[in-house]
């Protein structure tokens, strides 16, 4: 090693803040085993969601009453292999989990996407423009945030009825405020930031400042929140479906599968354990990924994660 460059101590933070390439990020993922597992799990999950028809070993609705309640790893009557066992109708649990992922994950994703769009747009504009508009929006946000959301969700679904579309609607209505509050705070900070004042002095229009200058600079915390919200929505979907107010059978969702399995909890433990484990691992992976994004985009601690020789 050649003698290290003498870089002044007070400028350490600045000198480290050189641009990070995609390769740096890839390297950082591979360097952190836990995060790598989380990413891998999510990639596999998404693959199953998209290609359930090709990847599931059995049909989700294919009943076979002779193979009822077989334990994991059992071989059924026609020589069929059941990796995670079968349910009370003889359906393959593993295949049902894969089809269930499609429902649970997509409800979470779509709910998060809609609320993210609505929240970020209202939040950024409220924070930047201020005034009466901001007052009205933030009153609404504060009010809705202080409602007991689980209860309101249950009530709305009680009125409208459950189902896939209504779930997404309820999630969007009850979660956009989270994004709105965050983006409004970020925009408020950015509004007084010098680069925004400079852009204004240079004659940039309002929308241009909000979406070209502020948005790219506040993406990181929004992405983190987005990831966390997917996890939260997947958990909520499971709870609502378990109570019978969410996804309707025969659509398989992880929450419904737990509800069904509950009757056999003493004899067939796998029916409750595996769907719950699937939800747990999904939420855990999303949380880990969110943590990782937060760490690598945080100016104070990113160097620890991106550095190659001082890795933990």
């Amino acid at each position: 090693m050649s003698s290290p460059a003498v870089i002044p101590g007070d400028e350490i933070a600045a000198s480290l803040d050189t641009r990070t390439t995609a390769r740096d990020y890839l390297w950082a993922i591979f360097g952190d085993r836990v995060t790598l597992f989380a990413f891998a799990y999510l990639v596999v999950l998404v693959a199953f969601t998209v290609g359930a028809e090709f990847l599931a070993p059995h049909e989700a609705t294919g009943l076979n009453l002779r193979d009822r309640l077989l334990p994991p790893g059992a071989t059924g009557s026609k020589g069929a292999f059941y990796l995670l066992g079968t349910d009370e109708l003889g359906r393959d649990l593993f295949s049902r989990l894969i089809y269930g992922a499609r429902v649970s994950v997509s409800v979470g994703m779509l709910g998060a996407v809609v609320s993210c769009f609505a929240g970020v747009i209202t939040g950024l504009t409220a924070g930047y423009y201020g005034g009466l508009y901001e007052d009205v929006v933030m009153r609404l946000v504060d009010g809705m945030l202080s409602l007991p959301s689980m209860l309101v969700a249950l009530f709305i679904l009680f009125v409208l009825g459950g189902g896939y579309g209504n779930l997404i609607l309820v999630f969007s209505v009850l979660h956009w405020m989270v994004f709105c509050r965050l983006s409004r705070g970020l925009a408020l900070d950015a509004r007084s930031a010098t680069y925004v004042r400079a852009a204004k002095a240079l004659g940039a229009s309002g929308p241009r400042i909000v979406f070209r200058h502020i948005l790219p600079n506040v993406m990181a915390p929004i992405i983190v929140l987005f990831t966390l919200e997917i996890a939260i929505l997947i958990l909520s979907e499971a709870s609502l479906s378990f109570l019978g107010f969410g996804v309707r059978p025969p659509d398989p969702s992880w929450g419904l599968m737990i509800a069904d399995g509950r009757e056999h909890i003493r004899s067939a433990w796998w029916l409750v354990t595996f769907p719950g484990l699937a939800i747990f691992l999904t939420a855990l992976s999303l949380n880990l990924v969110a943590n990782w994004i937060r760490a690598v985009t945080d100016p104070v601690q990113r160097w620890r994660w991106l550095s190659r020789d001082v890795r933990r």
Partner: protein
Amino acid sequence: MAYYLRRAGNSLLLLLLTVSFVFIAGRMIGDPALNMLGPGASEVALEKLRRAAGLNDPIWLQYIRYVGNLLTGDFGVSYRFGYSVLPSEDLDEIGQPVIDIVIERLPATFLLAAVAMGVAVPLGVLMGVVAAAHPRSVADRIVTIIALAGVSVVQFWLGLMLIVFFAVQLGWLPTGGYGGFHHVILPALTLAARPIGRIAQITRSAMLDEMSKPYVVTARAKGVREWQIVFVHALKNAAVPIITMIGDELSALLTGAILVEKIFAWPGIGLLIIDSLTRSDLPLIQASIAVVATLVVVVNLMVDFSYRLVNPRIKLGTRA
């Protein structure tokens, strides 16, 4: 003082909006009389009920009567609880006043929430502080993993797993129901998992924030011990986000108890809500929602007021 009044005013407005929303939504489901008497009711009986309950009046009059009744604590009577025969002339005999039913259930929910938060708050704060005091240590990693597990687990599933293990397999604890102390252990643990995780997470990040501030360097330069810096200097400044999170979790717990109470057959307000929803008992639903919303509003107000106690900088009521 003005600030407290304004806050209380906002909260009341919010409550009014909530009950109004519930009222309007309730009317959207269909004919309340039919709902009340069931599909087999005769047209005569329905009409009798409509007249008696004022359901033929204009909707705005009904609304005003509804809100007026709420203000006097009258949420109406239950469709389903406490009556067995068809209604007589005297409507009071249809069922029990719903507010009584709801209030009867509150102690059980309070007990559950108190035990769960009594476990979660000290444990979560301690875990977060320990993790932040030694960032990137083994303790930090363990805390991070436990906290992540806590926020990632599905509560009702955790409850079921605990039942299978401790109640069914080991037989140490009852599978559910309400009674002595051993009944409360499993549901409270189930409920505590998420708050432990979230409080530990927020404590950790708030403490890390504080520990990087210049006043910590000042304290070190004074020769203050590290644990004193952590617990005396930093924790006090990190208190606002932690208290906010505790408040949020307490509110979530009051409603999150729905699933846990159902799984453990715990006779609290959550179980009542789910029962009233499955039986379409509209007055009972309205009363439960109003009571829970009030509780949540009270928790939020308490959180707000406690900021002032821990943070001398927050000057309530002035805004530059």
